C-alpha cells in the first residue's frame, strides 16, 4: 500500500493523463497515486478515464481552482 505523489502542476491537458498512465503501470495493486492540478479539465478528464477503467478515484476541490485527486490501482 504505497502512496505516490506526482507533480503535474501547470501541465497541459493530455500530459498529466499520459504521465498517470505510465506511473500506474509501475505501481502495484492497492497503491495510491496522488495528483494535484489547477486545470479543471485535466481533473475531469482523469476522473472520467479512471471511472471507465474501473479504478477507484476521489476528486476534491481543495480550494478554489485546485483539484486534489487520489487514484487507487484496484486491479492490474
Amino acid at each position, binding site marked *: 500500500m504505497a502512496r505516490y505523489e506526482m507533480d503535474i502542476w*501547470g501541465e*497541459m*491537458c*493530455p500530459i498529466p*493523463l*499520459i504521465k498517470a*498512465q505510465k506511473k500506474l503501470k509501475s505501481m502495484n495493486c492497492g497503491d495510491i497515486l496522488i495528483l494535484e492540478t*489547477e*486545470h*479543471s*479539465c485535466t481533473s*475531469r*478528464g482523469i476522473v*472520467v*478515464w479512471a471511472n*471507465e*477503467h*474501473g479504478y477507484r478515484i476521489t476528486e*476534491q*476541490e*481543495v*480550494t*478554489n*481552482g485546485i483539484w*486534489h485527486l487520489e487514484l487507487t490501482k484496484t486491479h492490474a
Partner: protein
Amino acid sequence: MHWQPPRSQWKLNLGFMVFLFLLFVVIWQISSRIAVIFGLGIALGFTLQKARFCFTSALRDPLLTGITQLSQALILLLALSVLGFAGVAWWSADQNIPLILNIYPLGFHTIVGGILFGVGMVLAGGCASGVLMRIGEGFAMQMVAFIGLLVGALIGERSLDLWRAVFGEIPGIFLPEILGWFPAIILELLALLGLWKLSRWWQRKQIGG
C-alpha cells in the same frame, strides 16, 4: 492534506452579476442586437464552463485514451444543432426573414487549416472557445495560447486569398438545397447515429466494457 472547504465566492459572483447586468443595460441603449449577442455569449460561456465541455478532448481522447464519452457528447450536440437549425430555418421562412448562411467553399486549404488547428489545439490544451473559457476561469497559461490563436487567425485571414488562388476550391454544399429539408435532416441524423455507434464500438474495443 488537511481539508478545508473552498472559500465561498458568492460576493464576487453577486458583484460580477450586477456588473454584467449593468453592462447589458448600457449595451442595450446602444444596440439591442449587440445586447442580445452579448447575452447569448455570456450564456454560452457559462454553459461551457459548467459543463466542462472540451472540443479538444472530444476529438483527441478517442485516439489517446480510447475514451469517447466527450465524442458522444459532441455528436449529441451536433444532432441537437441540426434540429435547432432546422427549427430556426423553418421559423425564419415562416416569418419571411432572410436567413444568412455561412456556407464556405471547400478546398485543399480547408484540410491544411484543419490539421494546423488540430495540432495547435492539442499542444495548447484548448480550442478557441475552450481557451477563452479557461482564461475566464483564471488559468493564466491559456493567455499565451490566446496570443497564438490571435496571431494564427490573423495570418490565416490575411493569406486566405493566396491559398484560394494556388489550390482552387469547390463551392460549399448545403444539403437541404439539394435534397430538400426533410431528407437532409434524416440523412444528417443517420450519419450522426452511425458515428455514435462507431464511437461506442471504439471505446469497447479500446478499454473493454
